[in-house]
């Protein structure tokens, strides 16, 4: 059995019984005995130790639900069990990682990683899971939960309200794409969907509003965000508001000109965006062209690289 699996079981049992004064060593010794000398299957060994300890310490069964840690309370270098919702999935940037993203519960949100080696069923965005025996670590001040081969993950049927799921985030990235049905567009008065030739897919022939809106993609090299920019933000970035956009469209007898002009001014630019993140969609509350102090950043990276 793998060392990390062994340690995970020890930690799990320890977490349950530590308040009764059980030591890690004690659990380790029992587990070693059962697994390596008596060659008991691991699940049996685990159950036997738990039952034994329960008897020793006179603990009633009901008191021993696997203890669930809240995300706000996770500590680096510990093994925990969590109930959490998958808030976002990101594209892994290494083949060693099967899945990565954010999970959350009612106390907070944390990053998570499922190692490819863990060989787990794929998690889905928006679904809730019981994560058992996951390990917490910390990198650059960011906590992250790792699902390893020692962990169990089960989908659960209870809804989890995630705290600050729609909290404001700040993202710096390059604007790499602007969708075609963007710019100066006609939207359905009832639902806000883009209408084509006066027809909404949902509501049929409808009255339409003319709005200035961009659906775009912000990309920081590690993940992409579907970025929505409204008229106010488009105006603050480009100086083109609804009025200017209409004028432009009238002069050229073509609304498409507005999209072309906005693409010219925004595509390929780095933006710093603050907004509300819902799965992959970032609704911008404010945005500016990103102008970092490059020289300081360069010096920092050189120092870290030992150059």
């Amino acid at each position, binding site marked *: 059995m793998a060392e990390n699996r062994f340690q995970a079981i020890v930690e799990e049992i320890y977490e349950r019984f530590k308040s009764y004064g059980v030591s890690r060593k004690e659990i380790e010794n029992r587990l070693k005995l059962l697994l390596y000398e008596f060659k008991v299957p691991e699940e049996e060994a685990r159950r036997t130790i738990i039952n034994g300890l329960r008897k020793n310490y006179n603990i009633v069964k009901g008191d021993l639900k696997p203890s669930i840690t809240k995300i706000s309370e996770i500590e680096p270098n510990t093994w925990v069990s969590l109930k959490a919702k998958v808030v976002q999935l990101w594209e892994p940037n290494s*083949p060693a990682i099967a899945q990565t993203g954010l999970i959350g519960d009612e106390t907070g949100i944390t990053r998570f990683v499922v190692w490819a080696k863990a060989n787990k069923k794929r998690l889905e965005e928006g679904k809730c899971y019981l994560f058992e025996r996951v390990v917490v670590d910390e990198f650059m001040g960011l906590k992250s939960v790792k699902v390893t081969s020692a962990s169990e993950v089960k989908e659960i049927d209870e809804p989890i309200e995630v705290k600050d799921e729609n909290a404001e985030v700040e993202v710096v990235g*390059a604007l*790499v794409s602007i969708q075609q049905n963007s710019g100066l567009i006609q939207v359905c008065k009832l639902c806000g969907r883009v209408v084509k030739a006066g027809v909404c897919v949902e509501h049929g022939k409808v009255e339409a509003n003319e709005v200035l809106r961009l659906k775009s993609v912000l990309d920081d090299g590690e993940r992409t965000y579907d970025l929505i920019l409204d008229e106010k933000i488009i105006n603050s970035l480009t100086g083109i508001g609804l009025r200017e956009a209409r004028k432009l469209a009238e002069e050229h007898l073509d609304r498409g000109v507005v999209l072309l002009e906005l693409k010219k001014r925004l595509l*390929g630019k780095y933006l710093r965006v603050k907004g509300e993140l819902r799965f992959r969609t970032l609704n911008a509350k404010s945005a500016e062209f990103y102008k970092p102090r*490059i020289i300081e950043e360069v010096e920092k990276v050189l120092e870290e*690289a030992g150059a």
Partner: protein
Amino acid sequence: MIRTARREVAKRVFSKEFNASKFKIGGEGEKEAVYVLTPLGLRCNRLFIVGVLLEKEEVKPDSDMWRIRISDPTGAFLGFVSKFQPEALESLADLNPPEIVAVTAKAKLLERDDRVIPLIRPETINVSDFETRDYWVLETAKATLKRIKAIERGEEKLAIEKYNPNLEEFRMTAIQALMKLKEEQSILEKEEKTKEEEKDEEEEKDLGFELDEEIVDLSDFEIGD
């Protein structure tokens, strides 16, 4: 609910690393994307590049297939733009090299006889500026150094097996790009300072003249609020 396929992230990579690529991965299932595997283990399907458009040349007269080269501090990307990239094709028409451009492109490996040629197919090309270019170099150097660390930790087995990359060489490339950036930036800052100092001096001369009380009697002016 219909879920659209996840959009591929535009990776940041210097041309030197990208051009040393020889292997593709993925593309097994019908839906699976194809990635270029670089010597440092980057799997890229799409790239974001800010560099200098050095050349644009029509491959054959009236073919509307253009060969372009875009340089970064480590070398140059080879690219092709045709009617299959209408947006890029349209922007390219207005560009006159040398010009700084920001490019989103698909990463490809072209297999010709026994050669493998890494190249890009731009989706969008936009005029950019020096500031954006500098930030791209910084970001790309950081991403490169991160990949080197991952290899050192033994995480990118496939890249090591396929390429056995010379990490020191790639590290030096990234560091040199940063050093150059640092030099240029400090030269720029010095220029700014000298300009400001000159301006200050001139302003003082101006003030000295205006404040000469023998010439301008300040009591002549009414000072309102």
